[in-house]
């Protein structure tokens, strides 16, 4: 860049990176992991609705052109055809944006794929609030919709490492899977924790006495930053990463939330309605665990367009907003 010194204006670009300046990243972890998986699994096929380039599936399309199926901008067809492929013994990885996968093709996912428990893996890009394009592209309620479908596995990965591990793991899972997808240059965070993704398992990344942050997806990255900032003020914060939203790792969550005297904070890149926060709250109530609880997540409203850092701050899912929320409750 010739104008490197000039400060960048904030942007509401559709594909705004969630990686911060100088943060380690990996490019297109989903696409590369799928190519690697396909090399040893002839049943793997890739399908998309005119969004291969924007879901990192173009990497697969280039490597395995005969196993890539472009279905056009037709999400109902995409999900129906993926069901048909699965019925013929293939394991389709289907990509589009989270808003279109969930809102536009819900009945096809419900009836064609889930009711017969078909092996379709839906990789949904731009989950939660990861674009500044406003509600047409912001999938604030995707987890709630997918959680409501019987037998659907729902996964919200944190970083590039987890996406790489998740791809072969979900291919081995029987039945349908909805996985959120971070695309492009994806931050690398979990490599410091000797991390291994296991479907259905939560993992304690940090321990601490005063606060327990239960988080999923990119909010685990923010939770780790939050814990570090709280530590500077001598506040100990544990971080329990919950990549599998359904089925929930109830025993690990109960064990951690039962430790007395801790503020339990859920953190998710999703609406306050029907996501991780409500799932954890309901679990604790059902199991008789009494805890003070705070939730970090998107409000129940149609979100504004704008630059991602601005929006994350406005809606309380930036690291500094999260630190403020927790301090206000301690």
């Amino acid at each position: 860049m010739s104008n490197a010194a000039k400060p960048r204006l904030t942007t509401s670009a559709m594909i705004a990176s969630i990686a911060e300046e100088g943060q380690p990243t990996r490019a297109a972890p989903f696409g590369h992991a799928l190519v690697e998986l396909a090399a040893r699994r002839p049943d793997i096929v890739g399908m998309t609705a005119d969004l291969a380039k924007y879901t990192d599936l173009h990497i697969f399309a280039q490597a395995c052109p005969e196993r890539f199926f472009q279905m056009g901008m037709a999400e109902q067809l995409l999900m129906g055809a993926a069901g048909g492929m699965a019925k013929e013994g293939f394991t389709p990885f289907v990509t589009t944006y989270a808003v279109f996968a969930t809102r536009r093709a819900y009945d096809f996912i419900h009836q064609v794929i889930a009711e017969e428990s078909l092996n379709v893996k839906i990789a949904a890009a731009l989950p939660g609030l990861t674009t500044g394009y406003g509600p047409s592209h912001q999938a604030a309620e995707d987890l709630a919709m997918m959680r409501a479908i019987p037998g659907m596995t729902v996964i919200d990965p944190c970083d590039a490492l987890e996406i790489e591990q998740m791809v072969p793991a979900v291919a081995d899972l029987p039945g349908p899977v909805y996985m959120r997808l971070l695309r492009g240059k994806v931050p690398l965070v979990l490599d410091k924790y000797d991390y291994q993704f296991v479907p259905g398992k939560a993992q304690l990344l940090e321990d601490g006495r005063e606060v327990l942050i239960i988080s999923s997806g990119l909010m685990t990255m923010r939770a780790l930053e939050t814990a570090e900032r709280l530590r500077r003020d001598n506040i100990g914060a544990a971080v329990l990463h919950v990549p599998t939203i359904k089925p929930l790792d109830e025993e690990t969550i109960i064990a951690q939330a039962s430790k007395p005297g801790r503020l339990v904070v859920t953190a998710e890149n999703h609406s306050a309605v029907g996501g991780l926060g409500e799932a954890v709250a309901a679990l604790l109530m059902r199991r008789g665990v009494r805890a003070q609880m705070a939730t970090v997540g998107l409000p129940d409203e149609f979100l504004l367009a704008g630059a991602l850092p601005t929006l994350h701050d406005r809606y309380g899912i930036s690291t500094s907003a999260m630190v403020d929320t927790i301090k206000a409750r301690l």
Partner: protein
Amino acid sequence: MPSPAEIEKVAAAAWRIRRYALRMGEVQGQGYIGQALGYADVLATAFCHTMQLRPLEPEWEGRDRFLLSHGHYAIALYAALLEAGVIPEEELESYGADGSRLPMSGMATYTPGMEISGGSLGQGLSIAVGMALGLRHKNSPALVINSMSDGELDEGSTWEAAMSAAHHGLGNLINIVDINRQQADGNSQQILGYEPLQDKWASFGWYVQRVDGNDTAAVIDAFDKAKNHVGKQPRVILCDTLMGKGVPFLEERDKNHFIRVEADEWQKALAVLDAQQPTGGAQ
């Protein structure tokens, strides 16, 4: 054209399909009987003339796939599966009962030979596209036959799939549309006009035929032409059918989308049908 013996064989199968459907309808006192009677000739052709099946091995890999997109036609397909020997005749008595393998709307998870869980309308053709792509990828010669109602032409997904099938050159896909002009709210043309249908499908790149769906010889001929058509075009057979076909007092009902029949009428309907028993109709 098909041989007289083949036409006779299929007509006899259609007659038995109508009888099975009426007997199942009698069990529940109601059902989509009009459609079953109207569609029997098409189903008889598919199951007793065209398709490669192994009745005792309904999931045989080499079978031709029959997708019932309009799941509420289940009674008609159960009758065809009975005729084809996939479902035993004594199971007919359980139609629509709790715990039965024959629920009133067709679901793959319940019934052998039922390929998909239809009923949320306008989904079958999309699934058929995926299955046809998958079969081609496996180098399988099996056909995918999707069966849909004319009401499903209202659904946008039907046209997404129609465009896709032609784009992908799915010559192994045959789509059957039952045009009986009746939907839940009444006459199809008053709900959402879909004509001219031949032009629509042709403009989407399909090999199109339109036949009287109750003319057994014409239906057999159309299936033969669809199967033998050379090239990569997907094939559609538009079948104009008469709801309640074969039982005049049901043909004449105004509201025959979902028929309730009085207890004594079932026997009357069966008697009317029995009087029409074709040559070779006895089992």
